[in-house]
């Protein structure tokens, strides 16, 4: 079983190495990519079942016990997020393959796309699984380096700037992370998360707060928490649809996951965190208002992404088992729906030849399939029942209601942000799907992957989008078992003992 935990990390690397070597056959590259991700999905599902039944599954790499070697830990939370992330990655890969086929034909292999796509998945998996702070840094770097390449591939003059912003801000945050690790090590002498849990507790309270705030800022940048979110709406919209979908779905959530893991495990609080509550409110409101001000569909979705990061921060800020469970459930829901929306946006863009919602119109009549594909995730994101968004939001609201007066007030902001989300979505619906039909804009630049003014969308692209919509519906339908898992995951996070015990052994917890 412990070997299984390493597979989500090592299999994509293996796949990447093979795709580099098989760089002359597009077919083999596609096959390797799909098989690896499918295999990782299965592994993640098995891990989830195992973690739910028998507790965290731990792999001591090289056979070295915890503080000496690196450990990979699949507990309920990480296995669940790993599963949903991999499934979404797989769907996005199918979409991307479809897009590549319709744009460059079947025979174009790539030395960059396939390997780097798989390595991105490695980074994400490692970030979820690792029980070691420095290894988390490495995971982030793999993930971010892959994202740099994906976001700046095929940029043209008008878009290189946004890629630049993204890379520079991310590099800065990485260096900040490295600094944080150095400071943590200086104070505690360890980088193992479970070990840190005990050692940080021995520090004076002021320094605990200092380290906690440092991690909040570090991961807050990756999670696009206001006021550290600026880079996201400027950069994400300027990548091809599958890339944006993957980024929007996964990367920020990995940041939230890191926040959730470190704040609960290493810096356990006793009550709602005022700082995080304020940040959550800011994130929700600024993001939602930003969405209302946009005319570009992708930018609008990016701002909504920021806004909903606030929802997840809120669950964390409540600092109890229900809040953590709510955040976990919300992450699962949001990974799926946000990726779906960007994929749909890609389809819409291919249909209309523009990203400006004002230049679109009447799509409901011309492309009813697109209308349905947009409507379901849009309602899901707005949290309209009976979608997964509703279930996840309900979990957050319940946590807020029982967390105390402050969290109850912030729950009101959750509701407000939902309303604004719905309003933004309605604006898109009214502008894009209703109204008079407009002719698709001509394709000025056939190599520009972002704006393709023709109706070139191959079947895999639709299939992938439909599949993701189905996943999001399935999340709602399976809300019972799912919320049971997240509820237990939330209590595990707050109790801390299952994790520490699994990594360091029973004595560590007692002592």
């Amino acid at each position, binding site marked *: 079983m412990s070997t299984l935990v390493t597979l989500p990390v090592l299999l994509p690397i293996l796949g990447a190495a093979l795709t580099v070597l098989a760089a002359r056959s597009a077919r083999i590259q596609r096959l390797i990519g799909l098989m690896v991700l499918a295999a990782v999905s299965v592994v993640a599902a098995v891990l989830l079942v195992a973690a739910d039944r028998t507790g965290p599954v731990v792999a001591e790499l090289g056979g070295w016990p915890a503080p000496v070697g690196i450990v990979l830990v699949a507990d309920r939370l990480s296995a669940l997020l790993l599963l949903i992330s991999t499934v979404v990655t797989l769907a996005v890969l199918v979409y991307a393959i479809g897009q590549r086929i319709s744009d460059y034909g079947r025979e174009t292999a790539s030395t960059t796309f396939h390997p780097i796509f798989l390595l991105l998945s490695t980074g994400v998996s490692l970030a979820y699984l690792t029980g070691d702070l420095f290894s988390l840094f490495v995971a982030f770097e793999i993930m971010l380096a892959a994202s740099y390449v994906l976001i700046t591939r095929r940029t043209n003059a008008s878009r*290189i700037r946004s890629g630049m912003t993204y890379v520079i801000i991310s590099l800065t945050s990485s260096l900040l992370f490295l600094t944080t690790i150095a400071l943590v090590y200086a104070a505690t002498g360890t980088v193992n998360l479970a070990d840190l849990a005990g050692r940080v507790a021995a520090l004076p309270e002021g320094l605990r707060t200092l380290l906690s705030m440092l991690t909040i800022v570090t991961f807050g940048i990756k999670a696009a928490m206001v006021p550290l979110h600026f880079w996201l709406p400027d950069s994400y919209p300027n990548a091809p649809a599958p890339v944006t979908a993957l980024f929007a779905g996964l990367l920020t959530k990995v940041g939230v996951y890191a926040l959730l893991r470190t704040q609960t495990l290493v810096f356990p609080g006793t009550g709602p965190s005022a700082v995080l509550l304020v940040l959550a409110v800011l994130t929700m409101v600024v993001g939602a208002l930003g969405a209302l001000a946009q005319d570009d569909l992708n930018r609008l979705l990016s701002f909504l992404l920021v806004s909903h990061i606030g929802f997840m921060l809120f669950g964390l800020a409540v600092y109890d088992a229900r809040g953590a469970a709510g955040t976990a459930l919300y992450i699962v829901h949001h990974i799926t729906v946000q990726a779906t929306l960007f994929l749909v946006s890609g389809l819409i863009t291919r249909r209309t030849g523009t990203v400006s919602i004002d230049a679109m119109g009447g799509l409901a009549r011309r492309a009813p399939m697109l209308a349905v594909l947009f409507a379901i995730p849009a309602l899901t994101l707005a949290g309209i029942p009976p979608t997964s968004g509703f279930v996840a939001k309900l979990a957050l609201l319940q946590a807020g209601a029982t967390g105390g007066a402050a969290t109850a007030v912030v729950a009101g902001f959750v509701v407000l942000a939902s309303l604004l989300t719905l309003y933004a979505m309605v604006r898109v619906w009214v502008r894009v799907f209703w109204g008079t039909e407009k002719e698709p804009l001509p394709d000025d630049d056939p190599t520009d992957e972002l704006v393709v003014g023709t109706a070139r969308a191959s079947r895999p692209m639709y299939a992938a989008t439909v599949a993701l919509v189905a996943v999001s519906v399935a999340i709602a339908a399976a809300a019972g078992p799912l919320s049971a898992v997240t509820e237990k995951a939330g209590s595990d996070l707050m109790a801390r003992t299952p994790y520490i015990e699994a990594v360091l052994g029973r004595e560590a917890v007692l002592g």
Partner: protein
Amino acid sequence: MITINVAMAVVLAVLYSVGFYLLLQRSLMRILIGIVVLGHGANLLLQLAGGPPARAPVLGTALPEEFADPLPQALALTAIVITFALTTYLLALGYRSWVLTGRDEVQDDVEDRRVAERERPEGSMEEDAEGPDDEEDPGSAAASDRTDEPAEVSGSGAAR
């Protein structure tokens, strides 16, 4: 127990300050150099987090008690390599940006500027209120089916 000495603290402060300062510039090359300097600072800090100077941790060359803490060294080594990899990538990106735009500055985002200069979003619902009126009254039977049977057809109801 272990404290970073004053000299090294000064070096760190200078490295980080200069790195941050260069980062805040508009010239891409300076930003890049800023990142390299920050990387140096971070690696140095990581190494210093292990403790004061000591013997290299190679078995047989000294007593284990005299060894420097090996873990920060190993971590710093990994960090150095990663920083190097990303620096070269950023260099390439800078080069490409220069080739494409012909300048070394990081420009502001055009779309953000556009949004900032508007009064109200373009897709505003309020815009609906302007412009010509609809010809038909939408709630009427006439609007809801265009191709009626002759026996029931009522023609266009100009009901305003």
